[in-house]
């Protein structure tokens, strides 16, 4: 009997140039496609940062529609809520299989909409406004899903192998200083277009290899803060937890890593008193945000990228550096395929985050402002 498929496990890859130099998507496509056998054609996607320099002050909403009706309803809603600077169908190449339709909108909250005619949207701060808008569309408009909503970034994802999805979305024609990619092997949840990775909200995007066994607990925790899990896939909670912990609670990324992958109680026992107090407090306060189960994730955010393993390292992650370039991937070969002569290659320890950020000059060059924010 010929085995149709004998390898399993998702593949992830990420790249950032910390000097902010933008490169085409071809390399990340090559890198993730080298690990084609880690997926099974039921999902792939890319997140790209710095792709819309001409609209860098606008929230770029990438929206996926099941049908024209969903588009009509959503656009009527958007016109009431936000100023749309420009919009249009996302550039795609023709494919044979049935697919949703994709549109991009460059928007800003309107003056009166932040003051708000309705209770729900009466918010002074634009990030919070866009967050509520995204949650509203995903939860209430049938057949419409906002797949990304950050400034000067975007997510391209769907059902297919990575090279097919890249070809469909013309990923090679975009230029970004940071790329992340995913190749999916769905295990517990359906392989549908919205369920492909990256999962994204505002500036955050997450690609993930593994499974979040604590999905139910995390989902309930997030619901208390107004996050609606609508994408039928565990990884969604990671993107929302990042937004909650960093944007709303103001935690540092290294602290977030220790919330997601906390040290074991036995390890906390060995720490000095100050550390013991910190890690005990984190585990008590953020028990609902702890990610249980095996994972390696690559997170993209405004101005950087970080990689993290679960606390006992049940999934692979390799990090490499060459000059201003930082690479992360499930397999070393995926990095070596696009960059052979590396300065450094290593596998980070369990629960130890690897953070790569744009330099200050690069951040200002890309975003036009000095002050850093993560979304």
């Amino acid at each position: 009997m010929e085995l149709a498929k004998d390898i399993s496990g998702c593949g992830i890859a990420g790249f950032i140039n910390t000097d902010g130099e933008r490169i085409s998507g071809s390399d990340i496509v090559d890198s993730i496609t080298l690990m084609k056998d880690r997926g099974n054609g039921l999902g792939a996607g890319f997140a790209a940062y710095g792709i819309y320099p001409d609209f860098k002050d606008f929230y770029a909403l990438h929206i996926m529609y099941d049908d024209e009706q969903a588009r009509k309803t959503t656009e009527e809603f958007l016109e009431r809520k936000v100023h749309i600077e420009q919009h249009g169908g996302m550039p795609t190449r023709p494919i044979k299989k049935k697919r949703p339709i994709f549109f991009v909108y460059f928007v800003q909250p309107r003056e009166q909409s932040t003051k708000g005619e309705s209770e729900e949207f009466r918010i002074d701060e634009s990030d919070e406004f866009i967050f509520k808008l995204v949650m509203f569309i995903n939860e209430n408009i049938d057949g419409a899903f906002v797949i990304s909503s950050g400034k000067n970034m975007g997510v391209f994802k769907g059902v297919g192998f990575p090279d097919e999805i890249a070809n469909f979305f013309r990923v090679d024609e975009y230029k970004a200083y940071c790329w992340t990619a995913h190749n999916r092997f769905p295990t517990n949840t359906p392989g549908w277009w919205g369920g492909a990775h990256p999962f994204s909200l505002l500036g955050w995007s997450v690609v993930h290899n593994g499974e979040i066994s604590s999905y139910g607990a995390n989902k309930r925790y997030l619901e208390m803060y107004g996050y609606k899990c609508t994408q039928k896939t565990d990884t969604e909670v990671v993107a929302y937890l990042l937004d909650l912990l960093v944007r709303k609670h103001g935690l540092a990324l290294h602290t977030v890593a220790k919330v997601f992958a906390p040290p074991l109680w036995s390890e906390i026992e060995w720490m000095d008193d100050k550390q013991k107090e910190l890690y005990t407090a984190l585990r008590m306060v953020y028990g609902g945000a702890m990610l249980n189960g095996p994972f390696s994730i690559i997170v993209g955010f405004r101005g950087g990228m970080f990689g993290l393993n679960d606390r006992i390292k049940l999934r692979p992650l390799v990090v490499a550096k060459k000059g201003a370039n930082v690479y992360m991937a499930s397999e070393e070969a995926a990095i070596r395929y696009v960059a052979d002569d590396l300065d450094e290659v290593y596998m980070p320890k369990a629960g130890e985050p690897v953070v790569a950020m744009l330099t200050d000059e690069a951040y200002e060059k890309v975003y036009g402002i000095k002050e850093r924010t993560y979304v």
Partner: protein
Amino acid sequence: MYEIDAKGVYYRDLNERVRKAIREHHKDIVLHNVCGQYYIGCGLNDRDVKLTINGVPGNDLGAFMNGPTIIVNDDAQDGIGNTMNGGKIVVYGNAGDVVAYSMRGGKIFIEKDVGYRACIHMKAYKEMNPTVVIGGCSGAFMGEYMAGGTLILLGLTKRDDKPLTGIYLATGMHGGKIFIRGSVDERMLWSEAVIVSPTKEEMKKVKSEVKEFCNLFKIDYNKVMDEEFVKVAPKSTRPYGHLYIPGP
């Protein structure tokens, strides 16, 4: 010498070409431009075949292998020597997670570091007695559920910010021997293993393996042997027996 250019070759086709070369009685096979192809050397039986790999081989290198020698002139990925029965793997670089998982025979030499879960459930029976020598440092769970064989960890790449081993060292170990150059923090061990001094007889075996290691990687043997070794040994051959079978 029979050369194969592996550039862009799909892993199944590459492994098929290796098998074909062996069927055609080639003994010295060199693979160039290898990049991530899985299962190289998987299940091969021929004792006199030597496979040289230039590039990074994919996961499960030498899995179920039963005879040949594999030389990797670069880093290796996860799962090398998975359930290997015989033969030899030499890696001139680092290796990934789960090195020598359930290995049952043969030898593996790794020049630098390995990832997590090296040699978990390695085992031995009569003349089948695997040996693994790791030149660098190791991640957590090394030798977990180890049932037999010999693991030697040298820690030659150890630094202040890079510990020799991680936690859960030899958890559930119930057979075999682990020799570690330098000292081990007792807290790294769980409750199934203890740290003792190796006997003279055991040091003879360690010395001969380290000598082979040093010859392979051109490392000064005397310098390596300058430091003391400790032995990690199981307390019991059946640490969990009482968990499942009611006592008398």
